């Protein structure tokens, strides 16, 4: 059995800047757009690109993520060969194998990768919103006879110092790489998406481990080391929609933009569907008093109130005279009567008592998973 390319999704990150939203679940499992989780985009891209073997490396709070991914059937990744395998740190005779960094996580899973005998390996992070055909990137990697290809995107100059920045020659060969430079020399940012010729990457990882050289991180160690040794490292330019939703503000912004049916991501495109685990729920029900404007609503909802420029996820109930504005309501939240929610992100299974108010502003209000808002407190009773 031979897979030309297999994908490894690094889904172990905490995403601590998402605060309450990643306290109990990993960032790739954070809900997005009413019926997706962030990792659905990477998984669907793999499936649509014809990649049938995917390893998902988890570490931080993996329960929700594991439950979501299951056997991969929701993304068509449950075929006879390959499929999705969830890879978690484990202990062995060599001691505990906590993942110290992106490349270290790959090193710890060499035996999984070897089992599939891939020629190439695609490294992805599970926390970006984008659509990308990895097959085009693989064609590029082969055409350039590269041993490493880094997907890059042009970012605004002022943001460039937040990213790993590449300098390329006119053949797209990377001549210089700087991780989060104070004075960036270009605005070509690494998207954290790499294709390596597996044999070569494998050698770098095992040799450095034998010699005690630090090779834990792709951006900080592996790519610079490839460049220093004169490997063929190329930049593959991507010019579509790509968003890192690493902060509350960016998560809110990306969701709000997603409402627009003309959004660049073109979520309704049947030829590149984004798949997800779809729970069983009846269609959404709008009562006689429902008023919905410029919003997304999905299966299982019950809406008796007013929804303006918001995203209402599965099985959310909104009572009469309540008003939801510029907000994201995650699944299974119950909102009573006369509730006001404005500029907020509301986690799954939250409960709003009648007359409760959550109003954000420039600072987006966040209501955590299972949180109860409003109602009588003990003293009032």
């Amino acid at each position, binding site marked *: 059995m031979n897979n030309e390319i297999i994908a490894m999704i690094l889904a172990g990150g905490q995403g601590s800047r998402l605060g309450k939203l990643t306290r109990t679940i990993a960032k790739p499992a954070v809900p997005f*757009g*009413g*019926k997706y989780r962030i990792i659905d985009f990477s998984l669907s891209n793999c499936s649509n690109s014809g990649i049938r073997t995917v390893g998902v490396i988890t570490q931080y709070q993996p329960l929700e993520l594991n439950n979501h991914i299951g056997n991969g*059937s*929701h993304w068509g990744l449950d075929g006879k060969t390959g499929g999705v395998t969830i890879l978690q740190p484990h202990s062995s005779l060599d001691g505990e194998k906590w993942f110290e960094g992106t490349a270290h996580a790959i090193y710890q899973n060499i035996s999984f990768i070897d089992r599939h005998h891939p020629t190439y390996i695609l490294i992805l992070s599970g926390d970006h919103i984008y659509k990308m055909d990895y097959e085009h990137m693989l064609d590029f990697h082969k055409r350039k006879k590269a041993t490493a290809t880094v997907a890059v995107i042009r970012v605004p100059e002022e943001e460039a110092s937040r990213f790993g920045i590449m300098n390329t020659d006119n053949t797209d060969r990377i001549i210089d790489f700087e991780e989060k430079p104070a004075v960036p020399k270009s605005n070509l940012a690494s998207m954290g998406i790499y294709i390596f010729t597996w044999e070569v990457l494998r050698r770098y990882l095992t040799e450095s481990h034998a010699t005690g050289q630090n090779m834990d991180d792709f951006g900080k160690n592996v790519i610079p080391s490839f460049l220093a040794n004169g490997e063929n490292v190329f930049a593959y330019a991507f010019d579509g929609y790509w968003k890192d939703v690493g902060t509350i503000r960016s998560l809110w912004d990306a969701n709000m933009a997603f*409402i627009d*049916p003309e959004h660049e991501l073109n*979520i*309704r495109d049947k030829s590149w*569907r*984004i*798949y*997800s685990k*779809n729970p*069983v729920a*009846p*269609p*959404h*029900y*709008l*009562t*006689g*008093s*429902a*008023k*919905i*404007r*410029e*919003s*997304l*609503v*999905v*299966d299982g909802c019950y809406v008796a109130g007013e*929804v303006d420029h918001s*995203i209402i996820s599965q099985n959310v109930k909104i009572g009469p005279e309540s008003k939801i504005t510029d907000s994201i309501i995650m699944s299974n939240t119950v909102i009573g009567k006369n509730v006001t929610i404005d500029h907020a992100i509301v986690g799954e299974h939250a409960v709003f008592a009648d007359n409760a108010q959550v109003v954000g502003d420039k600072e987006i209000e966040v209501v955590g998973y299972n949180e109860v808002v409003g109602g009588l407190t003990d003293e009032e009773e």
Partner: protein
Amino acid sequence: MRKNKICGILDLTEPRNVLYPLTLNRPVASLPFCSRYRLIDFPLSSLTSAGVETIGVFLNDSLRSIYDHVRSGKEWGMDSIHGGLFFFSSITSDPASGQRRLLDGDIYNYFKNLEFIEKSGAEYVAVMGTKMLCNIDVQAIMRNHIEQGADITVVYKKVEHVDTEDDQHLSCMDIGKDGLVQTLRSCSLQNAEKKAMINMEIYLLKSRLLMRLIRNVVAENEHCNLNDVLHQAIVKLPTNGFEYTGYVKDISSIKSYFNANLDMLQDANLTALLKGSQPVHTKVKNEAPTYYARTSDATDSLVANGCLVKGTVKHSIVFRNVTIEKNALVRDSVIMQGSYIGTGVELQHVILDKQVRIEANTKLIGTEDKPVVIEKGSVVSRILEEQTRQMPENRSVTQTNDRLETARPSLLK
């Protein structure tokens, strides 16, 4: 529950001519219902919720839409190594001439395929169809059956009065104080004013008994259907009546189909059928969330995923992937998957089958009793609408695209 104690028979050989043109290319079992379901989802979910692991699906001559929808049965958890779904077609070919025909009376189809019941090892068999739309607890029937110790249990629904037009093909029963069925007769003989117990054509009995009944009928060379065999049996053998108290609708006409859909706009009905303790599963599609534009005004409606709503929707059932343009008005209607409703369109009491396109400024108005039905894939535009008025029954309004042109004449009688 012990493993595989009950197996199921889904009888999909139900007559479908009464639902033309919706059943032109699909059996009653595949009729789309309530924004995202098909009728077969209900008995299939009832059986699987009760832990039934082996189900025999007896098809008529319309197979494609059933296979496409059910496939391996994965959504109902039927793709396990235990049991599974078994499909039996009632199309047969004469060994001498090779000519294909439908079996006269479906009982031979059951007779030929009794092996699936034997192999399942199930002690009991539950028999259901799809046209009696309900969400029933098969385990409760089973418990009641064992308690009562009768040979057969049949499910009935108490109604205040029989609708002589819609219910005439159904059968009613009388049940004695001992809970046993005393008589069975056609509902057309029932006094419309009186309360009645309608036979829901859902049965539970020992597998061995069902196999013996079928073999006996075949030995006597009778041509009949499974329901006829069971009707004879419940009169002859001690039969326990099990009362179903939930929502039920007999889907046997365009009107009853239309009403059943609009019934779901009453919270009590929707809850009884779809939000109870037994979830109804269906084929999963990965549609985007539904978008409501600033110009939209949608109330008192059920809407599935994947729609773009820019116009007004009142008291309607909207399936997946429907587009309703600005200034369109949809009232009291059932709009199936993939339909497009142009700007300025007005629809009331209309059923649009899948992938219908209503061009801008077209007006289609049916009545509560006779909704306008537009056949799958039709394109309806304003010029053609004028011609419709002269057509009988308000039906088949349309200019169809090339693909469907050949299918049309049969409809225009």
